[in-house]
């Protein structure tokens, strides 16, 4: 019997087919809509259905109705108490602590992420991990992209990196979705309207990869996956240890995806603090 642990607030009705499957995740699609059936190690998200059944191989079909979903013809009813709210709410927080927490986040990312993540944008020494000609070219693209982003040439920046890199959601797309999350966050935090910029970047970034598009759309609309929401909460309201723990949890997703999205997020936040002054003496972006 399948036990429902949580379901996302943007899971749409429909008859879904398997797009791809991994050990802890089955990606289903119906038209342009995606639903991810995951286990608790992946956690909640706007399009996630989290179940406790470890045997994902058996799951072949998914149909979602108003009040229940069918997984392999087994009906599981949506329990409102298990609905995951992907929206970020910001209440009072200490701005100086927030800034110092960003430093902790940056440090945790650099020290804990995989060799081939985009953290080389914060720590130039990590570039040496990129050895093949493909990887060296990839580094060059990202360096050009951040120059473009820093000088507000967003479309040019997106062009440099969209679809570029490793994995089913390439590193460049992860970076862009992190950047969009940052803009949405700043929109809420500073009450500055970034909606035009967000729409502009999203339009430039979306492409033929339906899977990546689903993540970009979530980022554009400010729908956050649980692990990312946790890291933002810890930056706003907690301290070093919780940031470290949440960073480690976040970057354990994929080899580089969590870290790459975090780099995009941090870049987006810091760029707005230090507009026009993003290259420090030691070759770090900020």
């Amino acid at each position, binding site marked *: 019997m399948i036990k429902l642990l949580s379901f996302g607030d943007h899971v749409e009705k429909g008859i879904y087919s398997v797009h791809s499957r991994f050990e802890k995740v089955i990606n289903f699609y119906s038209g342009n809509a995606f639903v991810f059936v995951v286990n608790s190690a992946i956690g909640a998200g706007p399009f996630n259905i989290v179940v406790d059944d470890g*045997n994902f191989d058996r799951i072949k079909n998914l149909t979602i109705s108003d009040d229940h979903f069918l997984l392999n013809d087994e009906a599981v009813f949506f329990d409102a108490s298990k609905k995951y709210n992907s929206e970020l709410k910001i209440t009072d927080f200490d701005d100086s602590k927030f800034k110092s927490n960003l430093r902790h986040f940056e440090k945790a990312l650099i020290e804990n992420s995989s060799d081939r993540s985009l953290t080389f944008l914060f720590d130039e020494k990590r570039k040496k991990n990129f050895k093949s000609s*493909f990887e060296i070219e990839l580094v060059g693209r990202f360096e050009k992209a951040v120059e473009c982003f820093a000088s507000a040439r967003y479309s040019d920046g997106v062009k440099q*990196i969209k*679809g570029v890199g490793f994995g089913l959601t390439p590193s460049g797309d992860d970076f862009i979705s992190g950047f969009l999350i940052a803009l949405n966050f700043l929109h809420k935090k500073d009450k500055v309207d970034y909606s035009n910029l967000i729409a502009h970047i999203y339009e430039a970034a979306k492409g033929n990869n339906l899977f990546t598009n689903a993540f970009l759309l979530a980022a554009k609309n400010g729908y956050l996956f649980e692990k990312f929401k946790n890291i933002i909460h810890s930056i706003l309201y907690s301290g070093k240890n919780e940031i470290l723990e949440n960073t*480690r949890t976040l970057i354990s997703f*994929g*080899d580089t995806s969590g870290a790459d999205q975090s780099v995009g997020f941090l870049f987006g936040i810091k760029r707005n603090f230090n507009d026009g002054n993003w290259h420090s003496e030691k070759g770090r972006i900020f």
Partner: protein
Amino acid sequence: MMVTGILKRGEYFDSVSLMLIAKKISEIEIVLDSAAVMGTPENKSILQSSGLLTTEIQNAGDMDLMIAFKCNSQKESEIISQNINDFLKKSAESEKSSAEINPSSIESACALLPGANLAMISVAGKYAGDEAMKALRSNLNVMLFSDNVSVEKEIELKKFAMEKELFVMGPDCGTAIINGVPLAFANVVNRGTIGIVAASGTGLQEVSCLISNSGSGISQAIGTGGRDVKKEVGGIMFLQGIKALAEDKNTDVILLVSKPPADEVICKIIELVKEIDKPVVGVFLNASVELLNESKINCEKTLEEGAMLAAAFAQQKNVDDVLKKLRERELDLKNIAEKESTKLNEEQKYLRALFSGGTFCDETQMFFQKMSQEVFSNTPVGKVKKLKNNWQSEKHTIIDLGDDEFTVGKPHPMIDYSTRTKRILAEANDSETAVILLDIVLGYGSNMNPLVEIIPVLKEVKKITSSQKRYLPVICSVTGTDKDPQSRSTVVAALEAENVLVMKSNAAASKLTKFIIEEKR
């Protein structure tokens, strides 16, 4: 030179798998350059600029896997392509086979294997306790590999296990050998008459290998998890393990290994051992000797001494002779140290010890307690000070790279050498480094090909130091046996070929290091 492209339509991989595939391809010696990425137009454009885009892959779609590589000839291309297809096939087969035998719960696992009497649990800490309880309720002994289980849960599990006369090895139990079967990180050792109870994973590996390499063998090796011997848990399973070995007809000698237990636990151990007729040897690293001096336990300071003493009891040798031989070896170590120290320059003063085994980090610190110069560690013991920044060495530095800070998002350093290899190069570049001390732990669970990781780094160290006109000794202990899949003697020979001073044990390696540092002073 030729470029080959392989297109795998609809074969998407998460980035972990993709990186692994890319790494394996790049490690093939005859591959000059390579990439393994999804077929997005942008990735194709990078392949184009890198000279890796071929007609075979130029029509790849976003959901297709592109593999491209450069090599010298058509024949090489065929060999590499075959290798790549084998990687992909193996990867797919392992997913399939694991899926076929992958039960979804403890209950369904028991149904698949009705005779099972032990469950190995390795899931996220917050779920591990509940899974362990389910296993105990199903009358299974538990090896709880997971960490981050609360101490309250650990106590609850262990008390429940006691009622059912079952074992809970762990949480955070990395190694055990039960009825000759190595579990998790463990070595292939001789079977014999020495039973081990250990609250220290690497400690258990070291003593079991030293015993096996000396010609003796292990009856059972029970891990308890490090926290078992602390005050809160009260040594529940450590004591249970001693009782079990005392009653085991195949065990003649009992060897206890632990970082310092709480005084209350030591007292309980001493009381329990009073009732046991078999010889009991104890290695309680860095523990106060006052309580133990009057006990029936034969206490030794180092893992090596403990292992050799237990082996002497098992082989009915004169134990004093064995210990005397170990002490005499110190003269040899001092001679080596004298020669090594003369090769160092004035600036070279400090030890840099980079361990993958946490117990080795503790054991080495024991040798450096009395050093007048400051000694630092990320996991300090006794007088050793805490490093301000664990990523940056300070004076004498002794690091446990298996500690949480170094392992997030990465496998344990016994498997993934990348953090350590970077740190070795950083220490080699430091003109104050006098000795680099390392451990290499072999066996199941560890890196299957450590030489591929470590030898290039050792060559790089030589390059760095000779360009700076310095000599830098690298000292290493290798924990393992020739029956391990990696074969200890093969690893030792390769290290010695790179002029590494390979020692039989971590204790010997630490002593040699200490003598060199002392000679320098």
